[in-house]
């Protein structure tokens, strides 16, 4: 495929979040790049990389950038995107080497500032990942991060705003963690000056009926946060989340910044708003920290009316939707061994939703039979008397419920479900059950809440486009981690439609097309209910 022909196809595949097609096109592009006598034109190289970055395809982005560099495409932006791809795959040392050279060699001040910004992020990430602020080498990483960001800011305080806000945020963080910085900027003064610059910029744009770009809005939000102006921060966040160029890439970095650097948790309306907006975007994904998702904590949020006033109807609605999801997460259980090792997920259903012999039970736990089974033939599953359930979103997982009874199951090769009772029924609302499946027009997404690999609770909403269904199964895109087995699969109204059980790189398509694709598979709840109804 000629260089320029790949771009429209790649854009379409990236927009459709079609991983297979993106990988295929990148593979073809790389083969072409490596074999051609001359590297592709700079504009093509940049466009391909930015298309991949925009939708967070970092692994193929890294491979493409690598091929371009090998072929002699020496454009600084290609180097930088290469570093970006490394950084987002947590290859920090490799990213550092690329960026240090890039910053030293840069002829263009804007490109140098970009390189320094990413270099700052390398050091910041080192500090945050270590979670050990007492270690000298970790403290040194924080100092380098502050110095790098601040130096880049000072070179052009009117333009290098995001460097400035990062410096301010990290200085504030250092103070909270008790890390001495040996100087460094005053965060309040820096934030005040950033906010002043942005307000002036915004006023000029407003005259033309325009809004600041997404990153500037996020910077203003953080600056307000640094100044302790909570309501102002929410106002900026509202503008930011309403901005059309705030895509998953931008929102995810803001979410990370608020959580990791500012230490905000699920009870913060600001973080909730960003997360809600992120989850409403394609490729949005949110992982809750252990004990963080204890359901909406009303007393620490401004009252509904105040919040709605600040946020406006649309952002408030998104926030409410997210909080309804948090509420649903309360009845999602981590299935554990007696030693507390997480092996899967389950969720509560009301017995009344299940006809026949189950109607008398107020609270039942549904999971996969490959997670819990009474059948000796299902080897890897826990036996019912070995299994425990905890509810992280309710009490941080501190109360363990022993499984009492296995009422019904279907083998992993069939409907792969197990219906359990607990020794003591938790006083939690069961998941609502949807009466119909969403439309399969490629616009609907399914939402999986579970414990990937038995780890902490995660809203695994990544690219879960609803692809198709048959009598028994639902397909949605993008493989989920294996440990998500037994998770509820929700529609957009947080009503359960399925029981997640597998992810396949190749599976027969259920979207009406011939052939195979990569997909997640859930068991239709309606198929499970029908099977239970037929149980004698």
């Amino acid at each position, binding site marked *: 495929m000629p260089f320029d022909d790949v771009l429209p196809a790649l854009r379409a595949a990236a927009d459709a979040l079609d991983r297979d097609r993106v990988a295929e096109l990148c593979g073809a592009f790389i083969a072409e790049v490596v074999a051609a006598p001359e590297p592709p034109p700079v504009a093509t190289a940049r466009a391909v990389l930015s298309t991949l970055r925009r939708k967070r395809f970092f692994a193929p982005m890294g491979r493409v950038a690598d091929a371009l560099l090998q072929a002699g495409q020496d454009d600084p932006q290609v180097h930088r995107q290469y570093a970006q791809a490394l950084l987002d795959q947590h290859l920090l040392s490799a990213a550092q080497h690329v960026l240090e050279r890039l910053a030293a060699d840069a002829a263009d001040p804007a490109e140098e500032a970009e390189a320094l910004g990413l270099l700052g992020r390398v050091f910041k990430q080192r500090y945050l990942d270590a979670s050990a602020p007492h270690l000298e080498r970790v403290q040194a990483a924080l100092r380098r991060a502050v110095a790098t960001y601040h130096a880049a800011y000072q070179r052009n305080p009117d333009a290098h705003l995001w460097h400035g806000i990062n410096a301010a945020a990290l200085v504030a963080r250092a103070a909270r963690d008790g890390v001495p910085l040996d100087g460094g900027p005053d965060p309040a003064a820096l934030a005040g000056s950033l906010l002043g610059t942005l307000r002036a910029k915004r006023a000029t744009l407003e005259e033309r009926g325009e809004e600041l770009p997404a990153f500037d809005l996020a910077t203003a939000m953080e600056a307000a946060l640094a100044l302790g102006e909570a309501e102002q921060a929410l106002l900026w966040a509202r503008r930011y989340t*309403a901005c059309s160029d705030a895509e998953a890439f931008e929102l995810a970095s803001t979410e990370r910044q608020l959580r990791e650097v500012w230490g905000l948790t699920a009870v913060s309306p600001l973080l909730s708003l960003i997360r809600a907006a992120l989850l409403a975007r394609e490729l949005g994904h949110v992982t809750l920290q252990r004990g963080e998702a204890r359901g909406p904590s009303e007393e620490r949020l401004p009252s509904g009316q105040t919040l709605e006033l600040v946020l406006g*109807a*649309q952002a408030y*609605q998104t926030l409410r939707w997210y909080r309804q999801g948090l509420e649903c997460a309360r009845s999602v259980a981590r299935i554990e061994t007696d030693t507390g090792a997480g092996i899967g997920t389950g969720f509560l259903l009301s017995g009344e939703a299940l006809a026949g012999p189950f109607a008398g039970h107020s609270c039942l736990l549904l999971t996969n039979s490959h997670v819990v089974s009474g059948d000796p033939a299902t080897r890897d599953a826990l036996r019912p008397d070995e299994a425990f359930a905890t509810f992280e979103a309710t009490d941080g997982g501190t109360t363990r419920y022993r499984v009492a009874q296995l009422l019904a199951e279907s083998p992993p090769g069939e409907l792969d479900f197990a219906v359990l009772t607990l020794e003591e029924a938790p006083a939690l609302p069961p998941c609502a059950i949807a009466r*119909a499946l*969403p*439309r399969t027009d490629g616009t609907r997404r399914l939402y999986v809440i579970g414990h990937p690999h038995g780890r902490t609770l995660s809203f695994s909403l990544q690219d879960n486009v609803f692809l198709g269904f048959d009598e028994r199964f639902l397909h949605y895109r993008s493989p989920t981690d294996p440990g998500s087995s037994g998770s509820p699969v929700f529609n957009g*109204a947080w009503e359960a439609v399925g029981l997640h059980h597998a992810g396949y790189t190749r599976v027969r398509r259920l979207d009406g097309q011939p052939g195979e694709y990569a997909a997640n598979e859930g068991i239709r709840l309606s198929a499970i209910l029908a099977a239970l109804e037929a149980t004698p």
Partner: protein
Amino acid sequence: MPHVTFIHGLANKPAAEALLRSWEHGFAHPDGFDLGDHGVTTSMVYWADVLYAEPLPEASSTEAATSEEEAEALAAEAASAAGGWGDLDAEGRAFVERLGTKMGVEHSEASAEAPVEPEARGAYEALERIPLPWFIKRRVLRLLIRDAHHYLFNASSSPRPGDTYAVQEELRRRFVAALKEGAERTEGGPHVVVSHSMGTIVAYDCLVRVPECPAVDAVVTIGSPLGLDEVQDRLRPEGAGQPGWSREDGFPSPDKLRGPWVNVYDPLDVVCALDPRLANDYRRGGRPAIDDLEVSNEGSWRHGFLNYARRGVVRDRLRALLGL
């Protein structure tokens, strides 16, 4: 799967797909009934292009378009469309004048902006706390009269060079084609028509007077001008033995409408205000059969579709009609 065929009302609209999206969004937000999440497929019988050269630009966000802004945009558009009456024959002129007099809006150019405050005004403003300015109402009503005339008299419309339509023929063709396509998509699930404003006239006309029109399971009319005598007169049978409106048997026959007809109105909606309830006018075997549902919309622009779509009772009723 259940299917909803929408048909929009008077005045120009954003492009078909954007309009359909905004209507679905209207039912879904806030805290509403998301048709797509419940597996309901939808289509829009789009006909603004039959009367207008190009679609309206899409609102930048659904939040931005308040009902008042919508009303003002509509009024501005109505003012610019003031000349679009075409040649009226005697019958057409009588229709326009009768309706115009009834509503207090003369159709002639000279009186379009005249500061006359007709008696009919009282009927529209009885209980309004935030009254819509009369000049806006008048323009909207003039637009209604014009669109109704064009449809009911099968007027000719040339919205763009090279495109000429016989309005009624074209709208009937589109509506019937959409119902056929919708019927194929439902595969046994209920097929519901949701019509608004002028669209209710098209839907009714097709279900009652177009023999090849497929059957549907339920009809929802919203903010409908079907209560107007002048409209009903034009929906009478076209000849002896032909189907059409009569007060005693105006309800569509069971081989066209298998289930209920729900008519939703806000008594302060300018388009249906003169006769908002339909049960008395479209009976089945002499007995009322339509479920007239009164709602109270927000703000001053009570006629907007999205205003109706946000009412919980409307959403609940639609949900029930779809068996969800």
